[in-house]
């Protein structure tokens, strides 16, 4: 009896939610009968009513917490991945320079470093050079693994955003905004220039034109549209991404029609019939 979810509730409805979420019992029992017997419910049907209310409330709360946490993990993962990219490039440059001097070769880039990392070193200096190249290789592998993780997590956190923008771009938008909720609350014009903060500040200080797009430029719908129509394409895409972010945050179910609408809109813009 002590293990039943309803065993020790008080007046506060939150106590039922808490009991559902954190209780445990190895062995199930005939809880409906026990609930009636103990006076928790007047009859079985009354018990099921209370159970329904409590389980729905508990699931809603748990889902919301888990998703909050997930979108923050996505933000951390994207930032960690960006750090790895930067750091990997920096160390790769140094490793190529060093290896080039040690092996009397003049080559550059990650491919060269990966090749050096696979060499059998001869002597203590070469051992250090090769070990340094191996560090770069390890960072590159970690970066790739983290990118896969981001691409797996993004559709769970933001299904509509990931459907419209590819999981990786969706993750990057969420990271730039600092979270799904913040992204959902931004006007679509802000979403359009997310990632182009430098250009935006230059514009606000009066010495640059207003940027037409930020990170969403990497989307095929913008990049693949001819330059004079890109502003319209970026605006259309940002509009739909804003809607997607709001659905993802406030409701969460996938709306495939968003993508169909956007496709149609972009086709119209590219056909040249777009408003300015």
């Amino acid at each position, binding site marked *: 009896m002590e*293990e*039943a*979810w309803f065993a020790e509730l008080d007046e506060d409805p939150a106590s039922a939610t808490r*009991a*559902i979420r954190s*209780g*445990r*019992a*190895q*062995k*199930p*029992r*005939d*809880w*409906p009968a026990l609930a009636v017997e103990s006076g928790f419910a007047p009859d079985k049907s009354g018990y*099921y*009513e209370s*159970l*329904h209310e409590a*389980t*729905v409330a*508990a*699931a*809603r709360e*748990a*889902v919301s917490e*888990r*998703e909050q946490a*997930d979108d923050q993990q996505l933000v951390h993962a994207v930032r960690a991945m960006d750090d790895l990219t930067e750091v990997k490039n920096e160390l790769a440059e140094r490793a190529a320079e060093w290896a080039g001097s040690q092996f009397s070769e003049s080559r550059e880039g990650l491919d060269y470093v990966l090749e050096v990392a696979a060499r059998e070193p001869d002597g203590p200096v070469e051992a250090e050079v090769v070990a340094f190249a191996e560090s770069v290789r390890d960072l590159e592998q970690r970066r790739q693994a983290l990118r896969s993780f981001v691409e797996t997590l993004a559709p*769970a*956190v933001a*299904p509509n955003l990931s459907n419209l923008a590819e999981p990786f771009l969706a993750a990057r938008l969420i990271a730039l905004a600092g979270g799904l909720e913040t992204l959902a609350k931004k006007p679509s014009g802000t979403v359009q220039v997310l990632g182009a903060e430098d250009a935006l500040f230059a514009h606000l200080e009066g010495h640059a034109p207003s940027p037409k797009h930020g990170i969403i430029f990497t989307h095929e719908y913008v990049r693949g549209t001819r330059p004079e129509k890109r502003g319209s394409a970026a605006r259309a895409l940002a509009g739909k991404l804003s809607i997607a972010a709001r659905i993802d945050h406030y*409701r*969460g*179910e996938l709306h495939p029609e968003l993508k169909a609408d956007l496709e149609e809109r972009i086709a119209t813009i590219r056909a040249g019939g777009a408003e300015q």
Partner: protein
Amino acid sequence: MALATRGEPVYGEPTADGWRRWDPHRSKLGAMLELGLDTGFEAGDGVLYLGAASGTTVSHVADVAGPTYAVEFAPRPVRDLLTVCESRPNLFPLLADARQPASYGHVVEANLDVIVQDVATTGQATVALENARFLAPDGRLLLSIKARSEDVTREPSAVFEEALETLESSYEVLGTRKLDPFHEDHLAVVATPRAPPAE
């Protein structure tokens, strides 16, 4: 003739006169029923549904069954499942891991008539063994095994054989059936607890 239940529509399924078409292409249990397996599933049964996802199948189950406990681990589909629950007072959602039955043993009642299991994870047979504690002695396990969830590199037949062998330790297998053409490389299993249900 087509399978249908009475209830609020959930996933854009065709409806007529309050009846909702139960699409066997979108539901493993629907396919079992469509293919005529003897599931023993009857109106008013107490059901534990493991792997409820966004509620497509469990919505039909709850339209027919009595108390229906829906366990799902991923938060995203549980949001959809919550909508399905709104109009179904006999459907109880649980955001929980089916591999950890003690985490819902204080909520799900004992002696249920049916367990429907459709989890896409390795160790699907083990999940069935762990949850046998909720079944009545004459209850039914309606299990669908997805070969690719166990091991993508092995032949589905080998995967199924191993799963059935694991299952036999606590269940008596009453029937099996491949689910094509509705679902490829899925095996449906109908089983009943062998001894008194594992505790």
